[in-house]
């Protein structure tokens, strides 16, 4: 299905070439034993992920802890080694070095979960923002100050923030600083890894609003990674669901949430508590038993089959399903896509 000129895993009907493409991306880590000696065993944190992100699109990635979503983010900005290909505007970036790599990172910026540990505590916010501006040549001399002012204004911080240090700000304000810093080099793509999960809900809403607003105004392409399914749904055009290093479902947001194809997606959605007592009182949960297996010992066949309520011995435990287009724009890696619904899975 990887025909020349056809870009798999894009939104149905999107004719423009994707801005960011991942092709069979894999990241693995060697494991140390209790004495600190490297073992042969490998954790395959990201185990063959292929996807495309169109210009101006928000792709959400959800999954539970350990599913590889953060490692995937780090691979995209080239913070960890990987195999496979990452293409930006059709150019493979996996071999880039030094100046070319710097130029790539200028176009693809990252926003981290914990803005406090990702901001240098000894620099004022002004210097934190001025540094990447000067380094990238985005502005020079006194124009740098003007640009810092613009950035602060863009993320809704007062101008006097420039002379203060990160510790003087609250969590939400720090995340605004983190965003301003990512935007300082005028990137095309922002990879946001759990950008709101450390924040209180009222502040979280401020940052979500800001992200959506900035994306519209600046035409940003966004990869939004989070474990909170409602938050991801709110900001994303398309959503990818990850399980044990692989994407098991990828579709437009409404399809994923209303018509999930993969049984894992179905159970994940049923586990999310809904802030409505009337809904909750009649709701039936499909509680998955046990926990996700260790990525050190990925199950044979479909990696979800030991926990899957609709798994059959054959082919689920013997053959690994590929991420295939089940309906236009809707992909799932399941031998029985769409057969799992809240109703069938309960019985």
């Amino acid at each position, binding site marked *: 299905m990887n025909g020349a000129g056809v870009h798999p895993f894009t939104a149905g009907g999107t004719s423009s070439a994707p801005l960011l493409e991942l092709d069979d991306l894999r990241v693995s880590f060697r494991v140390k034993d209790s004495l600190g000696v490297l073992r042969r065993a490998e954790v395959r944190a990201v185990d063959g992920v292929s996807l495309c992100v169109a210009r101006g699109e928000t792709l959400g990635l959800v999954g*539970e*802890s350990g599913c590889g979503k953060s490692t995937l983010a780090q691979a995209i900005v080239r913070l960890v080694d990987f195999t496979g290909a990452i293409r930006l505007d059709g150019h493979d970036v996996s071999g880039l070095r030094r100046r070319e790599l710097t130029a790539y990172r200028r176009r693809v910026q990252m926003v981290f979960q914990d803005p406090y540990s990702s901001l240098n505590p000894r620099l004022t916010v002004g210097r934190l923002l001025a540094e990447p501006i000067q380094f990238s040549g985005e502005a020079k001399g006194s124009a740098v100050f003007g640009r810092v002012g613009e950035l602060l204004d863009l993320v809704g911080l007062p101008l006097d923030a420039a002379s203060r240090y990160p510790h003087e700000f*609250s969590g*939400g*304000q720090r995340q605004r600083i983190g965003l301003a810093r990512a935007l300082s080099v005028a990137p095309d793509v922002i990879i946001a890894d759990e950008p709101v999960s450390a924040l*209180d*809900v*009222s*502040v*979280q*809403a*401020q940052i*979500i*609003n800001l992200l*959506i607003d900035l994306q519209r105004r600046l035409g940003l392409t966004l990869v939004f990674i989070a*474990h909170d*399914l*409602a*938050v991801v*749904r*709110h*900001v*994303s055009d398309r959503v990818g669901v990850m399980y044990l290093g692989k994407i098991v479902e990828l579709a437009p*947001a*409404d399809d994923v*949430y209303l018509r999930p194809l993969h049984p894992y997606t179905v*159970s*994940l*959605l*049923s*586990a*999310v*508590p*809904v*802030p*409505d*007592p*009337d*809904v*909750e009182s009649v*709701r039936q*949960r499909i*509680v*998955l*038993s046990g*926990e996700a297996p260790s990525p050190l010992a990925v199950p044979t066949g479909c990696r979800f089959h030991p926990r899957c309520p609709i798994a059959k011995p054959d082919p689920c435990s013997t053959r690994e399903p590929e991420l295939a287009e089940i309906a236009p724009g809707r992909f799932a890696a399941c031998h029985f896509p769409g057969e799992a619904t809240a109703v069938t899975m309960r019985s």
Partner: protein
Amino acid sequence: MALLDIEGLTVRFRTLRGEVHAVNGVTLSVDEGETVALVGESGSGKSVTALAVLGLLAPTATIAAGSIRSAGRELVGLPGAKMREVRGRAISMVFQDPMTSLNPLMTIGAQIREVLDAHTDLRGRAAKQRVVELIEQVGIPDAERRSFQYPHQFSGGMRQRAMIAVAIACKPRLLIADEPTTALDVTMQAQILGLLASLIAEYRMGLLLITHDLGVVAGTCETTNVMYGGRIVETGTTREIFRSPTHPYTRGLLGSIPTMGGERKVKLTAIDGQPPVLRSTPQGCTFEARCANRIERCVVEVPSLDPVGDDTGSMVHAAACFNPWPSARDGGVA
């Protein structure tokens, strides 16, 4: 008689920068078999309230006013030895992070045993058997072998189960759970909430659930208390609070959460500004600075918790606000 009766609880902390007024006159009660939520954001004073109940406040904290009664017995000012009789026996607590609240140097079995040693006559083989029973009861497979393992050999969800086993070892009347599922993934959260619900039904325990997650509250608790700036700003049945919130903070909080069914990419009604640092008890409403409904009176006077709409004192629904949103029962917005 209520299992837990907190009245006018006021807690202050001494810090280098002066006093922090963390809890300012909290009143709430939990009855037998009742599940009560205390909802609020970080710094609202919800955890401090819980720690005060168990006499676990830091040495820098003082209970400046108020009373805490457990089945009629006053807990404020109770000497340490007497408090130890209450803790783990009448009232138990489940904390957010089991890794830091379980002893890393003791096996899970030994930690459950410790509670039995302190509060029951079970010894020797009988105690051992009870330990295994408890581990089984909280849904940990292979209970006997697991009882000899240490916390680091357990996964996050299993550790939380182990901590629940420690908490229910003596069948306490009241369980306080402080963000018991916040550190867990949604599927694990669903498992743990299900476990708590079944234990509460079985033992007819009261539950005080402290959380920031309104989704968890909606599915777990009958009664909801919304806390902000050290005060309870709205209280009532969960259904009532979610259906017709009248306090601007509760409204803002509910509007802040993206829903699973709503329109995507629309502006969420975030609450501007940030929670206050309570260096002193504010003269007026603690929410006043962030409130869209603020009137002059809010700045100078503290609103009391008054019944909402035609509710006369039954406390089905009460809010502390001078200029609340109309409740659904007033014919206002549903």
